[in-house]
């Protein structure tokens, strides 16, 4: 399911609005679930959410584009975020970055054609005492070495 069917989005949004409520304050949890389920928040999904919460679509767009974990473009099933902040940097993040690029055949900022992987940098993820560190979706991986990274990627593939 690369581009989800409109009906699927309509019923998902309906379900989420029921779950969280109609108030504007529920916008972020709703967006987070749509992101998690579909890998991005399409124009159609934004319009549908705006319609249900009775706010302008531009408001929803403004929120989606503000947060780095929400995206208007399709992301991979596995979003890999390597920490590039200083403690991980001095712990050897560059070697990990090169390994990831080579093994996935992707550059940072790219998503694979089959939408399996997205590769990104992120800022400090609070694992600075165990760097280099990265997140794959919600899971955290620490004390990375090139061979550990290869193993992690192989396991997912």
């Amino acid at each position, binding site marked *: 399911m690369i581009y989800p069917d409109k009906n699927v989005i309509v019923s998902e949004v309906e379900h989420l609005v029921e779950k969280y409520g109609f108030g504007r304050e529920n916008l972020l949890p709703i967006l987070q679930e749509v992101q998690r389920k579909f890998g991005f928040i399409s124009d159609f999904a934004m319009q549908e959410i705006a319609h249900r919460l009775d706010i302008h679509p531009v408001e929803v767009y403004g*929120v989606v584009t503000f947060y780095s974990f929400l995206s208007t473009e399709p992301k991979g099933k596995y979003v890999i975020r390597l920490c590039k*902040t200083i403690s991980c940097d001095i712990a050897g993040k560059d070697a990990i970055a090169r390994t990831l690029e080579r093994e996935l055949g992707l550059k940072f900022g790219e998503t694979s054609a089959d939408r399996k992987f997205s590769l990104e940098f992120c800022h400090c993820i609070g694992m600075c005492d165990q760097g280099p560190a990265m997140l794959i979706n919600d899971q955290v991986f620490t004390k990375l070495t090139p061979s550990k990274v290869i193993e992690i990627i192989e396991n997912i593939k």
Partner: protein
Amino acid sequence: MPIINDTIFFDEKAHGEALEKALKLTPQEVVMEIRESGLRGRGGAGFPTGTKWMLALSAKADKKFVVCNADEGEPGTFKDRVLLSEYTKLVLEGMVIGGYAIQAQKGFIYLRGEYAYLFDHLNTYLERMRREKRLGNNILGTNYSFDIEIRLGSGAYVCGEETALIESLEGHRGEARNRPPFPVNTGYLGYPTIVNNVETFACAYIVMSKGAQWFSKYGTEKSKGMKLISVSGDVKKPGVYEVPFGITIKELLELVGAEEPKAVQIGGASGICIPMSEVNRNISFEDIPTGGSVIVFNKERSMLKVLRNFMEFFVEESCGQCTPCRVGNKKLLEGVELLEEGRCSHRYLNELIELGKTMQIASKCGLGQSSPNPFISIVTNFKDEIMSNSIRGNNGK
């Protein structure tokens, strides 16, 4: 000489029964106890917690809210993660105590998206508290009711700033508000709200269980109690340390096994960088305040590279609402590039320092007000190193 081997958080036996004690007191008495302890906010700014709670208690409104700031985005900080995962009770019951103190009905944990893996653990703990009548209706058989909901962030550092956090909770872009009005009067959905750091709630728990007198035995005149410090970088034993306020940087470096240190960054990207000639300074609100991030750099490290890393962070995380921060951070980053290329004259460097000082005054929120700190302190304290690049650029790479 401060006591280093004494611990509060890390000694389970010392925790005691804070919630039971608090609910036997009046809200005013709880607030007074917190005030007497001298507890100041652990998120960095150090606002007296008792005063914040007092203001929220005296605000008249039919709803009030408690927010636990678990956004922990300051580079080099991870002590809140450890508290949330290993000392969950102190944090969550500390929130209930805060709720009771200001007479709130509802609390939120604003958990950074990067810590989403803690969501289930926290939710399970909240369920357990409800079963044990420590949360929900009629807590411990009293007529006080309070519940807690977890909200996830979505990867924006500025949402740790309390008014941006409230904007985010309300479903908006995380853009800081003008203050005043302060959240204690006009917070979540316009209702009085206290926003406190994870560690502050854990400290409030300790104060209620051990008493204000006991708590204020630790620390210095204006900085009471112990502080959790997240240590990373070039040290043998990175991790979270519990130390009394007033500990010198030198003592801390010995404790963590710093390896040939050249510089110590205190307070994360928005903190300051000190050279070894200043290690007799101490961690406290009187001298060097910090939310708890300490990063050590050994003598092999390029300070320009360190500075570039911090400035890139601010350029990417600025919310862009106000000009001093949006444009200023870019200018400072360009300055770093000029320094790397050996093309930054001393005169231009001084202009950049002045720009940094303007940003400290003119920016709308703490992000822009503190983002020039690493620039100013690194170019001042390590001037010989950062001015030594030739026109082709040779270090800093």
